[in-house]
């Protein structure tokens, strides 16, 4: 589930169906090293649920 705001209302957006060249591209996508390194270099602290 995801939302978008359109004409003053929040609408639920359907999940995508990716086909053809887009599908090939997505299946063969590379993992972005810089983003992953940035995530893994930090120790995120999650508190107890409020």
């Amino acid at each position: 589930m995801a939302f978008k705001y359109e004409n003053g209302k929040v609408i639920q957006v359907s999940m995508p169906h990716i086909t053809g060249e887009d599908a090939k591209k997505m299946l063969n996508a590379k993992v972005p090293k810089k983003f992953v390194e940035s995530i893994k270099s930090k120790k995120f602290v999650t508190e107890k649920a409020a």
Partner: protein
Amino acid sequence: MPYTFTPYTATTAKHEKRSLLNAIEFSDNSAKSEREQALLSKALSYASNNSTQLYSMRDTTGKLKGILGFVALSASEVLIDNHKKPVVLVDLLIVNNKYRSTVYEHLDNSKISQLLLEYAGSKFYDVREHIGVSYLILYPDGGQGNKRLVDFYKSRGFSYATNKHEWMYVKL
């Protein structure tokens, strides 16, 4: 760490909805502010029935007061050709208007948006320790018209899934 994240239970999301909606400042632009409030309100509604998990971020050094931003995550799947791929979906990512567009030296030299997105990435890896997930995906608010936002996601490695320029993904 100079910052922490707090998950909200469904009960808190339900009973504290009003105070959480008032916990951050929205855009100075009235139309954008209305949109942001509506999206956060919807995320809180979904969080109140466990359809998304909402987290807030705070500065533990006390330099920045209150909630710095929210991120909401859920599990979903996309269909790639005929293959169902499990994904972690970023339902919402919003930064308190007071703290937007600023790099904070004491917060890992980062913007709040960057830390919220990286936190979403860290949760992706937490999920992957227990169940299979392939991609982190999102639907940028405002679509391709919101170039600044789209450029931010692209700079973190996200790509558009199709030439409709709606969904963006990153393979992790």
